[in-house]
């Protein structure tokens, strides 16, 4: 019956002959292309050795080394997790930059790194990244495969597992990096209870207050992605962050112009964005 209704419904008109008939398709395409071109230009500038702006100092980013150093001094492990992000998620890609950084630090300081997972494909890549870090540090035998753990793909099953692990193994550093949901505060408070130095980096606006309340350092919103780029220390990757900042300035200008025009009674910018 539902199929019949769908077939009977009039098909929406296609935009400009080929575009998907949704609000903001053309505006989105324009923004995507503009930013793509900007990224390309900035990368070319970086490759040619031309000056590009520096990424500002992010306090949370420097705390990673401090926290791993503290764990080494205390002889306790380091814990890092991203909860439930699959391999196709851009938060996972950013997380891998942090994981590689922490794994490199742990491998060079000979400190145990525990990675807990809720997604099996991500766990496989995580294991490879950590193994590679130990290999490059010349300590392949120090890598413990059992420390890359799958907890559960059920939210609170995973949370119980991680909280229990933190209570038992008492990591001296707890890194919560990625997109989190209701488990964020439980994980962060479990870390606070064992006295771990905690660094959180998240793009989830709903979880920012919890992390700010319970972690020593919190990287919010785009700091999380910019930090991932900054860790690479490659000017080519810096270029994409500069392009992102230029687009942001343009968007803020558009918001201000739109507000002024809308106040004056013109919906030009709104129509443009919805186009």
């Amino acid at each position: 019956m539902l199929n019949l209704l769908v077939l009977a419904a009039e098909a929406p008109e296609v935009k400009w002959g080929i575009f998907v008939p949704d609000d903001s398709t053309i505006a989105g395409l324009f923004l995507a292309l503009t930013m793509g071109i900007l990224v390309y230009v900035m990368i070319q500038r970086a490759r040619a050795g031309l000056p590009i702006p520096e990424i500002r100092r992010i306090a949370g980013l420097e705390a990673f080394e401090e926290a791993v150093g503290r764990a080494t001094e205390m002889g306790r492990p380091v814990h890092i997790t991203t909860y439930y992000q699959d391999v196709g998620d851009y938060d996972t890609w950013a997380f891998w930059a942090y994981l590689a950084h922490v794994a490199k630090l742990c491998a060079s300081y000979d400190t145990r790194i525990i990675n807990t997972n809720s997604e099996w494909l991500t766990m496989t890549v995580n294991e490879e990244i950590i193994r590679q870090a130990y290999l490059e540090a010349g300590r392949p035998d120090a890598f413990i495969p059992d420390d890359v753990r799958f907890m559960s793909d059920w939210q609170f099953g995973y949370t119980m597992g991680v909280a229990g692990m933190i209570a038992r193994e008492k990591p001296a550093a707890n890194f919560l990096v990625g997109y989190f949901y209701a488990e964020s505060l439980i994980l962060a408070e479990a870390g606070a209870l064992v006295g771990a130095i905690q660094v959180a980096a998240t793009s989830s606006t709903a979880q920012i207050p919890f992390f700010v309340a319970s972690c020593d350092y919190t990287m919010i919103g785009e700091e999380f992605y910019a930090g991932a780029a900054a860790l690479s220390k490659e000017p080519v990757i810096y270029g994409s962050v500069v392009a992102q900042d230029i687009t942001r300035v343009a968007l803020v200008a558009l918001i201000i112009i739109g507000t002024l025009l809308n106040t004056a009674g013109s919906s030009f910018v709104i129509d443009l964005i919805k186009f």
Partner: protein
Amino acid sequence: MKREVPLVLTFVMTLLRFGFEMLNPMLTYEISEGVRLFSRISFSVTFMYCMGLFMGLINLTRVHGNTIRRRREHWIYSVWLLIVMYGYAILGLFFGGMESKPFTWIYDAVIVPLDSTMFSLLAFFIASAAYRAFRIRNVESVIMMVVAFIVMLGNVSLGEVLWSSEAFLGGFKGLKDWFLATPNAASQRAIGIGVFLGSYAAILRVALGLEKRYLGGID
């Protein structure tokens, strides 16, 4: 070659996905009658996950079987894990399916209460985190505490008794609504715009092959 093939595949799949989002002829393209290319590609992900589930089942049996055979530390938990995993799967597959009473009862009587118990811990953790966060150390924490106090009072009946929503400024409830709808929404949207741009730049880095950590390396 081991690195080039995934990089090319990533770029092609990014273009395909972009096309599905933007171009109507691509989104509605049918490889046979009633079967869209988009749904077939989406199905490949489901297929991969099913294969992963099967491999996970074999791997768990192997790992925990070894633990039990060698009587490693906490081996009894491995026994329990295998009993629960296979028992619940057999119950669902051969005894009335997922709608059967024993199957749903185990879910309702075990999983749901455990879930709720864990979720309810949040209330206590919020209290302990709030205690640390609201200690007055500087101007920012004073502002945070005052605003949190107003929002809390705006949500409970005590706030209504102290300063009614009928009174000046809409009482605590009016102030709470203003805090949530104006400064809070504005800052959330600002962060949201930053997240969108940051995530888009991250996608571009991967699509253009600048970011290769998903291949398992550290650089």
